[in-house]
Each structure stands twice: as C-alpha cells, then as structure tokens.
C-alpha cells in the first residue's frame, strides 16, 4: 500500500518532471489523488483574474474520462463554495444530499491561483475525516507545483519573445527598403510569435495614412485600398496620450492591441496586432513587448525614409522634380534588358521646348524656370506610374515608355504636346503659350542599343524642329509627319 508520504513525493516529482506541461502534470496528479485518497472525482480550477471566474483546467474521475461538457466555469466573486475557498483562503466542505465535496484554496504567498475540488460525485458518500486531513497537505504540494509550472510557462514565454525580438531587430536592420522592413516585421509577429494578424499603418507629414500592410498567420499579405475605417480608429488613437493600449472598451476581451509608432516624439504610425480568430487574450506583457518592437521599427522606418529621401535627391533634378540625366541612362539600360527578356516593345520620347532661349531673353531666367516646371508637371500628369520622365539637359526632356509601341507612344506624345500648347501661362499679366517639338523612337524596331535609341530620337526631334516645330515625329516616319 502506498503511504501518503510516497504519494506526496510522486505528486511533487510529477510537477517537476512535467514543469513545461501543466496539463499533463495536473492530469497525472489528480488521478493519483483520487486513487490514493479514494475519491471519485478531482478537478483543478484556475483563476482568470481579469474575468474573475474560475475555469476548469483538468478534471479526473474514477472512470478516467473528461467529465461532460467541460464548459462550466464559476464566478470567483461571491456566493459559491469556490469563491469562499478562494477569497477566504479556507477549506470548504460541502456535505448535502446532492453534493459531497471539498474545496481547497490554491494560494501561494497571497497570490490566488485557483481551487482544487475533490468529491464523491457518483456515490455521494460523505468525505471522511482522514481523507480531509491528507487533502490539506496534498493541496499545498499542488499549490507549489502549479505556481512553479505557471511561473515557468510565463518565463519561457518571455524568453521566447525576447529571442524573437532580437531576431526581428537584427533582420529589419539588414535592409533600408521600407517594404521589406515591414514584411519582415509583420511575418515574424504571426509566424514566430503566433499572433493571428498584424497590421501596420504609417503616416505622412500631414498625418494621413501613407502606407499600410497587413498579414495573417497564413502568410497572406494585403494592402488596403480604402483605409477610411482605419483613419477613424487612428484619429481616436492619436487623440489619446499615444500609449499602447488594448481595444479600450467595456465588454471586449483583450484581443486587439494598438501600438503607436513614434519617432522623435512625432506620431509616425500604428501597429495593430490581434487574435480575433484564436481568441487568445493578449496580456500586458504583449503590450510591453510590442512597444519595444514598435520602437525598433520607428528607428528603422526613419532610417529607411531618410535613405529614400537621399536616394531621391541623388536621382532627381532639383528644379523640375523629374529624374536626372544619370538616372535616365540607368533606367534606359534596365528597361531595354527587361523588354529584351520579355519580348516587349519600349518607346522613347525626346521633347524640347520651342524657342526657350528667346523666352529666357524676353522674360528672364526666373520665368524660364517656371516654364520648365509647368512642362514637367504636364508631362507627369499625362504619363503612367511606370513611365520614366527625366530632364535630359537644358530644356530637353526624355521619357521612357516601357511596354509601348510607336503608335501608343504617338498618342501619349500628342497628348503631352497639346496639353502644353493649350496651357495658358500667366506672366506679368500677359498670357503666354508654349509649344514643344517631340521625336519618337521604338525598341527594337528602330534600334536595340541605348545610344542608338537616344541618337535616333534626337534626329526625329530635330526633324520636327526643322519642319516648323510644335509637332511629333517618329524616327521611322520623319518624312510623313508634321
């Protein structure tokens, strides 16, 4: 026969052996408890402090099965044997026709963990005195075991998250491309840390949402076109004191966390993490962990934006905002390679402002700059996002049109020419009209190397110049056009 001391030892060693798996430890020990003390059913209910309820964690019966629905939790507030045991810290014995149970508090150093309930559920036999005294001793071992297991679980959770945080920090620091940074950070949140979904929204200088990206645990990335509903959330979030919060509402469980991304005291964006599918509540620890990540992100985002600005400055013409001559040649090489790889067309527009020197001489260089800016803006308004418009030199502008044949290029060129011609430029209370001459060339029909393309586009442009200006001409049909 097993003595109480042996059972105590076994319970204690089970808790140690299964410290990483509280459910297995509890199941084994509850079975041990009912076997050794001759009870019929034993259960551990753990306190959900936020909800103030006790939830059944493990139940063992002499039939060795999980009892019934297992859904039942009990209020920890008042009026039940559970709450009396938990709140008064005393053993409660219920002896009545319908119930023969003992409720033992599981309290460690003042910290309420839960309640151990043990009863003769099937026979309703009264609890014997010797059973009761042994139970009180056993419940103390349960308390220590559960406390250790929960602490271990919490610490392991923390270590895991900090390790991941370090990894995310290292990974996002390896790139300066904003898209890659966001993808890396969000993927880690769902894949490594197990959150259901993660979203990030970044603001521009006017506090409007500039970029957004979201991911769910399946790894599907998504960018929202319409962010109006999120804008409202943003407004209310940013109106607060800008601290990380849960969905701050009366009835919602902590399933959504909002983490502001601040950079040098400025509100830069918002990180939203949720467990809306799994319904695992987020904790204060999640908030502090995510805040550290948001801090890391803000630094990397800031660096990335700085890099973006520098990169843009190095490839942009400061007067017109169009790309510069060096960037034009880089992109032309890339686009020719791409067109060659995929068997696509590519057209090049060369545009020159007519009589620009006369204009400068008449109105001054200040107005010459205005003309250049106006032409650049009209060009930008009439081309696609994939087209590349560059200031080639002086008053000459080159436009690369990927995937466009000569007919398509002609349509775009005409649209630009007419747009410029019809624009009424107001100078010293006078209206001036500008015209442009445009030459076109198409890859691979007219040429296959970049220097040839540029030379032939120039030839076409000068053909127009010599035939009355204000026109468009393709290199292959210079003689036909005017």
């Amino acid at each position, binding site marked *: 026969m097993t003595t109480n001391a042996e059972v105590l030892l076994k319970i204690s060693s089970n808790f140690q052996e299964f410290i990483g798996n509280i459910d297995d430890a509890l199941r084994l020990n509850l079975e041990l408890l009912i076997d050794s003390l001759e009870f019929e059913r034993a259960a551990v209910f753990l306190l959900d402090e936020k909800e103030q309820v006790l939830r*059944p964690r493990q139940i063992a019966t002499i039939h060795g099965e999980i009892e019934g629905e297992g*859904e*039942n939790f009990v209020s920890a507030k008042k009026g039940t044997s559970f709450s009396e045991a938990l709140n008064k810290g005393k053993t409660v014995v219920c002896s009545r026709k319908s119930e023969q149970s003992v409720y033992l508090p599981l309290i460690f150093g003042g910290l309420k963990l839960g309640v151990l309930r043990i009863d003769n559920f099937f026979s309703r036999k009264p609890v014997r005195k010797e059973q009761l005294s042994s139970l009180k001793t056993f419940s103390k071992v349960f308390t220590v075991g559960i406390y250790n297991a929960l602490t271990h679980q919490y610490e392991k959770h923390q270590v895991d998250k900090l390790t991941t945080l370090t990894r995310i920090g290292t990974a996002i620091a390896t790139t300066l491309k904003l898209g890659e940074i966001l993808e890396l950070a969000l993927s880690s949140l769902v894949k490594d840390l197990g959150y259901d979904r993660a979203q990030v929204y970044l603001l521009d200088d006017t506090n409007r949402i500039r970029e957004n990206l979201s991911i*769910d645990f399946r790894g599907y990335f998504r960018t929202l076109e319409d962010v109006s509903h999120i804008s409202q959330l943003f407004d209310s979030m940013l109106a607060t004191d800008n601290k990380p919060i849960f969905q701050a509402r009366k009835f919602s469980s902590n399933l959504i966390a909002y983490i502001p991304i601040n950079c040098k005291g400025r509100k830069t964006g918002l990180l939203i993490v949720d467990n809306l599918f799994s*319904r695992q509540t987020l904790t204060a620890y999640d908030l502090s962990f995510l805040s550290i990540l948001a801090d890391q992100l803000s630094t990397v985002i800031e660096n990335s934006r700085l890099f973006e600005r520098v990169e843009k400055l190095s490839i942009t013409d400061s007067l017109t905002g169009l790309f510069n001559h060096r960037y034009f040649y880089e992109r032309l090489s890339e686009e020719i390679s791409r067109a060659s790889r995929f068997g696509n067309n590519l057209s090049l527009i060369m545009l020159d402002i007519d009589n620009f020197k006369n204009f400068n001489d008449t109105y001054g260089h200040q107005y010459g700059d205005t003309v250049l800016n106006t032409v650049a803006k009209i060009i930008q308004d009439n081309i696609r996002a994939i087209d590349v418009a560059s200031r080639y030199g002086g008053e000459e502008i080159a436009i690369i049109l990927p995937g466009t044949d000569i007919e398509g290029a002609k349509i775009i060129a005409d649209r630009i020419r007419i747009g410029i011609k019809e624009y009424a430029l107001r100078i010293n209370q006078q209206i001036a009209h500008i015209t442009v001459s445009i030459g076109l060339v198409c890859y691979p029909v007219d040429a296959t190397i970049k220097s040839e393309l540029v030379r032939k586009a120039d030839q076409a442009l000068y053909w127009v110049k010599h035939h009355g200006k204000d026109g468009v001409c393709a290199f292959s049909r210079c003689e036909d056009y005017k």
Partner: protein
Amino acid sequence: MQNKIKFWLMPNGGFESEQTIDHELAIFKKLNPKIEVEYEMLSWSRAWFRLMQAIKEKSGPDIIQIGTTWIGTLGYLGAVHKLDKRVSSKSSFVPTFLGMCRFYNHLWALPWFCEGRVLFYRKDYLQKAGINAQDITTWDSLKAACSKISKKRDGYSKISPLGFSSQKEQVILQDIASWIWSHGGDFLSKDSKHASLTQLETRQGMRYFAQLISDNHVSKESLEQSTGEVAENFFMHGAFAFMFSSSWPLQVYLNSSSKHYIGKQNASNFGVIPIPAGPAGRFNFVGGSALAVTSFSQNTDCAMKLLEFLTTKESISRYCKNINMLPSRIDAPVSLSADKPTQKVFQDAISKFGRSFPIHPLWGSIEQIILNGMAYTLRDYRQSNYNLNAFSHNLSDINQEIEYMLSVFGE
C-alpha cells in the same frame, strides 16, 4: 504508418463517450482494415484553442468534430477541405443544418448530430397553477403562466417560475437569440458587415427578456449559477417550473441508465413544449456538431473515408441513439430516450423553427463581446436594479464594440 489518421472529437456520450465512438470505429475498421484511426477526446472548453494551435502549426488531426458556429472562421481560413462535391443536391441531411455548414458558397463540413432549444416544464407545478402547457404558444402566454405561478408561489415555498443562468456561457446567447429572432431582430445585419443590436426589433426582444427578470419571473439564484447548476436545481430539486434547454437532460436526468437518473416517478413529471413564438414568428437556436477534414491532413483520402462512413444513415442512426442526440439526416430514425410527443417537439425544433447564429469569420469574438455585455447588464438585474435606460445604453455599447472589431477586421 501510411494509413493512420488522427480524429479529434468531444465527449459526446457523457460517461460512455469512449464506448460509443469505439463502437463506430470498430465497424469502420471491419470495412477498412487498412486504415488505422487514432482518436483523442477534447473538452469543449479547450477544443478551439487546440484546433487553432494545430491549424497554425499545420499539424494535428486529419478529421475533426466541430461546432456549427466555427464554420465561418474555419472556412475563411481555409483550415478545412471543401466538401461541395461530396454532397448531392438530393442529400438527406437536414437542410437547416446543412446550410450551417456552408460559408462563402462552399460546404466545409458534413452534419453529424444536432440539437435545438425547447422549453422544459414541471407538470405538477403547472397543474397546481391551472396552466395547460399546450396553451403556452407565445411569449405573452409564457409571461402569463409565469405570473400565475408567481401568485401561487407561497404554496410552493421557494419555487420560481423560470430558471435562467446569466453567466458568461455561450448557451445563454442561444436562448436570448429566440427572443431577438421572434421579435424580428438579429445580431448582425444581413450582409454581416454591421452589428444590429440597436435595431428596434432586436432591442424589443432583449427588453422582453429583461422584463421577465424585472417582473420577478426568473429565479435570482439561478441568474448567479452556471447552466449546469440551473439544470441540476430544476431536475433534481424542483426549484423552478420552466427551464430552456436542448435534449441533453433526457440523457442525464431522465434516462434510467444514467448515473443521475431521478427515478421513474420524478422523470414522468417533466414535459417539453416548443420555444414560444413572438410577433415575427417562432424561432429557436439550432446547433450541433459537424465533421470536417483538415486542409493540412497528410492522408486526406483515408480521412474522407471516415467522414463518409460516420455520416452514413446507418452510422448516424446508431451513434445518435447511443448519445441521445438528434440525427443530422432526415432518413435516420429519431431515437431519443423519450416518448413520441417529446421526440416530436425536439424534431420540430430542428426542422421547423431552427435557426443559427450568423456565419461569420469573427463570430467567436463577436459572441464574446455580447456575452460579456449581457453578463454586465444582467449584473444590475441580479441586484434588483432594473433600469431600462441603462439596459439600452449597454446595448448601444455592445453594438459599437462589435462595429469597432469589424472595422479592424477590415473585410
């Protein structure tokens, strides 16, 4: 082993859960000797957590028992296989139930067994109060019956007309739904994009329920208890005249082979009637369990074979008889351990008046907000602090929080 599959299910047959499923799997084994099925029984309270963990890790069961309210999430996540091709348009599944297994125009699970809510009553209490149970057809007639019992209360010492738990258990929402639906309201808008708890009809249904408490027709003690405790007090201690429930008490309290059987004489003292009707008709919550094959299963063919076997007429008939539940197929006989009229009430609850919660990927989280909100609201009622304005105000807050969650969901 190549043909080994894992099956996760819940303890459907009470203390005989293992025997009942063992029986079916033994027959399956005879028909499919090369397929080995390993099953694990999960408690309902842990099942969702375990399943989500398995889905995230893409490792776990091949075939699973799921609650019908899970379909929206599992379908949205593509966590289970589509089963459209496995069911013909002339299938024998109960149409209402089959409809609950559909989401985004696809079928994600096959119905296994179902249950609907009904109203249990104590025959002796109603007789003493001069009430004919069959006359209780509307909410108003239930209220009138409750009033009669309240007036006769002195004669029955501590008896209350109605026992009702107001704790945060999913099942209370199933009963509140009856009031809402029968007044023409619902939890979400038809397109499921908005909450509709502030809609006039929904508010009216909720108010009706609140008034039952404020009019003292609901036992104050029962409001503090879990649904299990309320049932125990109703069947074992005769604490109330009425109680809403599904069919499980037939197995636990009214079945002579159960460990909790209350005895022949006591058992004959209970009857059932359909959930009363409201101005918009008669509706009761219908739910149950379905079977699905996980999309990460490495052995889909074997899992599909088990799924098909467990949903045959023969298997469903046997299993439902053993666990005392209603079959999900029209061609399977109903064999609840109850007399014919009682069985008919349960059958009608499924096929005539049955309705389910909105099928939505976030239903579980939405449900949690409503439950938290209702528990909060009813806390005042439990303390006899009846304030209909505060009640309406809380409904608006619940509504707003669901809206908020839907906007973060962004779909």
